[in-house]
Every structure is written in structure tokens, then in C-alpha cells.
């Protein structure tokens, strides 16, 4: 064998059984440097084992302390804090679950009402489009007063408030447009005399 044994090889030699690695052991008997290093290793091992044994003996010889003081004040505080934290989290989770259970019927009602509302919104928007188109058909033929601009229109599924007052034509009329609601009513408004405010309107539904 050429050169000295490295530390790992020496450690392996020391930890293996006496019959293992005969080449290494033979070198160890001849090389003074390796022998010194090996002895140093053996001393370290002995120190480690003795220290562990002595400390364990001293610690175990000390009488067991009461559980509340066994870990020192800090340990106890940590432990109690942990228990408190766990309890708080559990309480919060319980309260949240209870609140959810209590709120469940209200949430269901809300969902139900939202669904109804969205249906009304769809219908209303269709109607609003129809109203705008209807109003466009009479552009230039007088004042077209529609409630399409009114925000309340969105909540009215019917177009019953489309009032056309055109003094030149006497009667404003437009037909139901394709795609609009079949419930659409048409109003026939007849001014009474010269006073435009005094107008009598009748629904197409009333006229059959």
C-alpha cells in the first residue's frame, strides 16, 4: 500500500470487526503517522462514549421533577400557549360552522331570489331593446316618449308605458316587433281638442 490512510479509512478500520480489512490493518502496524492518527480517532471515540455515559448517568440520577416544572417556565408557557391556540382555533371553527348552519336557509332564499331576479332582468333587457327599436321607427314623426331611458324600465317586463303622442298623425301606432314579448300592449292615444295634455289612450288589449 502506498501513502497513508485517510481519516475515513482509519475510521472505517476502527469501526469494523478485527478480521476486516487486513491490508489496512497491516499498513497501520507499519506506518507511524497512521498509528498516531488512529490513536487520536480512538481517543475521540472513547471521549464521546464516556461523555454520553457520564451525562446520562448524571441526568438520570437527578430525581424526576414535577411535571409542571419539568420543562422550566418557558416550556410550560409554550405548552399552555399551544393548548390555548388549539382551543381558540377549534372554537372559531365551531362558531363558523354554527353560523353557516344558521345562515343556510337565508342563503338558500337569497340564491332563489337571485335566480328570479336574473330571469326578470333578462326579460326586462329584451323589452328595453324592443322599446328602443320601437321608438326609432317613429323618429321624425313627433315626440316619442318612451320609458326606455328610465332606470325603472329594467324592472318592467311589459312595454305598456310606450306612449306615442303625435299630433300630426293623431294616432301613434306600431306593431309588435319580432322577438319582443307577446304580452306587448299597444296604446292608441287620441288628443282631445287642442290641448295635448288632454289625451285619451286606450290599450290594444282593451280593443281586442
Amino acid at each position: 500500500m502506498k501513502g497513508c490512510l485517510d481519516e475515513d479509512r482509519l475510521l472505517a478500520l476502527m469501526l469494523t470487526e478485527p478480521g476486516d480489512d487486513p491490508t489496512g490493518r497491516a499498513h497501520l502496524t507499519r506506518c507511524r503517522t497512521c498509528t498516531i492518527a488512529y490513536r487520536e480517532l480512538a481517543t475521540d471515540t472513547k471521549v464521546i462514549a464516556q461523555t454520553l455515559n457520564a451525562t446520562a448517568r448524571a441526568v438520570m440520577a437527578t430525581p424526576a421533577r414535577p411535571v409542571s416544572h419539568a420543562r422550566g417556565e418557558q416550556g410550560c408557557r409554550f405548552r399552555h400557549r399551544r393548548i390555548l391556540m388549539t382551543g381558540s382555533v377549534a372554537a372559531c371553527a365551531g362558531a363558523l360552522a354554527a353560523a353557516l348552519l344558521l345562515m343556510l336557509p337565508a342563503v338558500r332564499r337569497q340564491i332563489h331570489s337571485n335566480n328570479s331576479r336574473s330571469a326578470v332582468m333578462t326579460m326586462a333587457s329584451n323589452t328595453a331593446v324592443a322599446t328602443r327599436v320601437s321608438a326609432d321607427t317613429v323618429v321624425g314623426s313627433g315626440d316619442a316618449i318612451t320609458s326606455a331611458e328610465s332606470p325603472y324600465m329594467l324592472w318592467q317586463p311589459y312595454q305598456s308605458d310606450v306612449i306615442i303622442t303625435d299630433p300630426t298623425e293623431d294616432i301613434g301606432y306600431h306593431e309588435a316587433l319580432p322577438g319582443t314579448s307577446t304580452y306587448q300592449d299597444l296604446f292608441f292615444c287620441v288628443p282631445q281638442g287642442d290641448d295635448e295634455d288632454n289625451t285619451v289612450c286606450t290599450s290594444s288589449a282593451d280593443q281586442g
Partner: protein
Amino acid sequence: MAQESTTTEMLYDEHHRRIGRLCLMLLGNPEDARDVAQEVFLKALQQSQNADEPRDWSAWLTRVAINACHDRRRSGWWKWWQRDGRELNDADLIAAGPEEDAVRAQQRVAIWRGMRTLTEGQREVFVLRQIEGWSTRQTAEALNLSVESVKLHLFRAMRRMRKALWSER
């Protein structure tokens, strides 16, 4: 019955310190070490009532202690409990020797810190081979490992322990 309790008493007197130390080295916690040592001797009492008594009580006790520590370390509540710093701390280690010997106290702390860095397998192998003085084959049989695994664990454990020792020097 009286003879069984006498046997257990004798076993206790003869081995309880060694088993306690072994448990402390494996668990790193004096209270748990005492608990586990008690469990071990309870098992010894039960075993002494059986017909098939072990031939070598010393080896039997060591093996039972290793398994009990192993179980304790694996249990969930133990891991939870350990996070609160229940392990043997530096103050305990310094207090475990004469006050005037500051250098040795630091060495003790360093070595026990090194012990904490070992894996469970390395710790078991190290304790059986270096502290209890078991052979590689005996250790392998007790821990249900191959001889090569024992050698590897021991080699790595020793390297770490020496590193810990030299970190203090």
C-alpha cells in the same frame, strides 16, 4: 409468584440504570426515558410470568428498550410534544457536571448536540455498538438490519459525532 417478583426486582436493580441511560440517549429526554424504562420493566415482569423466559435478560431488556423508544419516537403526540423543547437542553447538560469544569461542559453540550443530529437508525446503531459494546452482527439482528447497513450507519454516526466534538475544540 414470589420468585417471579424477586427475579424482576433483581433485574431492575441490575439493569434499570443502564436501561434508563440507553433510553435517554435514544430519546434525548429524561422524563420520557424514565417512562419508557418503566414500560420495559413492566414487560419484563410480564415476560417473567411466561414459560419462555429469555436466556439473556440483558440483551432482551436492551432490545425491548430499543423497540419501546422506537415506538415512542414514532408516536404522533411525542412529535407534537417535542416541538415545545422538551428535549434535554444545554442548561441541563451543563448542570449535569461539576460547575468549575467549563471546558468539559461545553464538550458535553457539543456531543449531545451531535447526538441530536443523528438519524434514528444512526442513533440506535451508535448506542448499541459504541455504548453497549455489541458486535456488528448482534446489532444487525437486534435492529433487523443487514451487517452492511449497520456498518454504514455507524460510520456516518461516528463522522457526525467527531465533527460535533471538533466543532467545540
